C-alpha cells in the first residue's frame, strides 16, 4: 500500500552506545509517507533511544539517518559519523515532531502560547496566523476552552494533548511518540490514544513507541518488535500479534498478554 510513497524517515544500521553499553546494535528502519509504525518491546530494548536518535536528541556512533532523503547524519569513508551543519540540521529536524512521555510543556506559557511559540519564533509565522492554527489544533484535541490556562492546571491527559498540538503546530512530516501514555493514570490514557487514533485516520506519518499492545495492534500499519538493541521482527500487526515468527517476540507477547 505504501510501496510507491516516499520515505519520510530512514535509518540505516544505526549504532548507539553509552560507554560500554551498546543500546542500539545496528537498527535499520524506513517509514513511508502516511504510515503509522508502532515500536514495541521490553524496557531497555532501545525503543526510546531509537526515537531520540531520529530527532537528534542523541547522536549516533555509526550508521546514517535521512529525513525526506536528506541526510541528518551519514557515514564518511572512514566509518565515522558526520552530522549535517547546525542550520541544516535544525531545518531537517523541524520536519519531525516529538511527543515525550513527560510532556515537556513550557510551564511559564499558557496553553495557546505553548503551541504558538515555535511557529512564531522558529518558523517565522505571523502571530495571528499562528494563533488561528493553534486554535484549530486545540479544537482537534478537544481543549479549546483551556487556551489561556497554564499547564500546571491541566491533568496529565490534557497536558499530553496540548503537547501533541504543540508538535503538530510546526506542521511536521512525521510525529514521533515516545511512550505518550506511560506517565498517565490509566483512566486518562484513552483521551490521548483517541487523539493519536484520529491522526492515524488522517494518514499522519508516525512512529509510536508504546506499551499499549491493543492500541498498537489497532492503529499501526506495521509493528516493530525490538529487544536488546535490535529489531527482532517486524510485520503487519495481525501477523506479529497472532503468529510471531521469532521465539523472542512470542515470549515477550506471552508475558505482556498475561499481564
Amino acid at each position, binding site marked *: 500500500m505504501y510501496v510507491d510513497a516516499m520515505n519520510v524517515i530512514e535509518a540505516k544500521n544505526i549504532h548507539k552506545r553509552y560507554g560500554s553499553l551498546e543500546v542500539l546494535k545496528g537498527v535499520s528502519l524506513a517509514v513511508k509517507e502516511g504510515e503509522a509504525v508502532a515500536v514495541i518491546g521490553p524496557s531497555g530494548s532501545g525503543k526510546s533511544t531509537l526515537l531520540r536518535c531520529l530527532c*537528534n536528541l542523541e547522536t549516533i556512533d555509526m550508521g546514517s539517518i535521512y529525513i525526506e532523503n536528506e541526510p541528518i547524519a551519514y557515514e564518511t569513508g572512514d566509518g565515522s559519523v558526520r552530522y549535517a551543519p547546525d542550520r541544516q540540521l535544525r*531545518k531537517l*529536524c523541524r520536519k519531525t515532531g516529538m511527543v515525550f512521555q513527560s510532556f515537556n510543556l*513550557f510551564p511559564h506559557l499558557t496553553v495557546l502560547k505553548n503551541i504558538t511559540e*515555535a511557529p512564531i519564533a522558529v518558523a517565522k509565522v505571523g502571530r495571528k496566523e499562528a494563533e488561528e492554527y493553534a486554535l484549530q489544533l486545540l479544537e482537534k484535541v478537544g481543549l479549546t476552552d483551556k487556551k489561556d490556562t497554564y*499547564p500546571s492546571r491541566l491533568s496529565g491527559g490534557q497536558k499530553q494533548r496540548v503537547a501533541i498540538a504543540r508538535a503538530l503546530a510546526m506542521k511536521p512530516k512525521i510525529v514521533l511518540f515516545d511512550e505518550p501514555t506511560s506517565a498517565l493514570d490509566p483512566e486518562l490514557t484513552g483521551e490521548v490514544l483517541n487523539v493519536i487514533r484520529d491522526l492515524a485516520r488522517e494518514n499522519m506519518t508516525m512512529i509510536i513507541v508504546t506499551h499499549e499492545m491493543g492500541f498498537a495492534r489497532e492503529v499501526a500499519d506495521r509493528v516493530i518488535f525490538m529487544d536488546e538493541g535490535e529489531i527482532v521482527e517486524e510485520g503487519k500487526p495481525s501477523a506479529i500479534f497472532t503468529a510471531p515468527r521469532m521465539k523472542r517476540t512470542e515470549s515477550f507477547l506471552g508475558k505482556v498478554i498475561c499481564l
Partner: protein
Amino acid sequence: MIEYILSILPSLLEGTLVTLEIFVITIVCSLPLGLLLAFCRISRYKPLSNAVGVYIWLLRGTPLLLQLFFVYYGLPNFGITLERMPAACIAFVLNYAAYFAEIFRGGIQSIDKGQYEGAKVLGFTYLQTMLRIILPQSARRVLAPVSNEAITLVKDTALVYAIGVGELLRATKIAVSRDAVTTPFLAAAVFYLVMTLALTRLFEHLEERFGAYE
C-alpha cells in the same frame, strides 16, 4: 529630640542619596554582568568556564572591604588611579557580579532537561531556548536569593565609609562625633530599615508576578 533629628536630617538624607546611588549602580551593572558570567561558567569551553570559576572564587573568597581597598589604594600602583566613588562602585559591581553569577548558574541549571529537549525538537536555537524558555523560568527561581543579595547590598554600602565616601553611615558618624550623642545611629537604622523594607515589598511583588503560572 525631634528638633535635633530634624536638624541632622538634611545631612542624613544627603548621605542616603549617596548610598542609593551606589546601590542602584551596583544592581544595574552587576545583574547583567552576573548573567554573562553565569553563561561563561556553564560554557562547554573549559578555559572560559575555569577562568570564571577562579574569578568567582577570588571575589567570594576575600572580604569586600579588602577588594574595596585594593581598587582604591592598590590600583594606583598599576597606574590606575580612581576617584573614591568610581572606585567604590567598581569594587561593588565586581564583587556582586560574582555572587549573582552563582545564583544565576544555579537557577539556569535547576531547569529540567526536558525543557531543553522540548525546545530543541521544536527547532529553537540555543539562544532562543535560553531567552524564551529557560531564563523566564529561572527568573522565578532566582528571585528569592537575588532579593537576599539586594538587601545585603543596602547594608554593605556602609563599607565605602572606609575609603571616605560620604554615604549614610559616614554622615551619621560625623553627627555623632560632632554632637556627642548617639541618636543619629537610631535615625540611620531607621533609614536602612525603610530601604530594606521597600526592597522586601518589591521582591514579594515580583515573586507573585513571576510565579503566576505555578
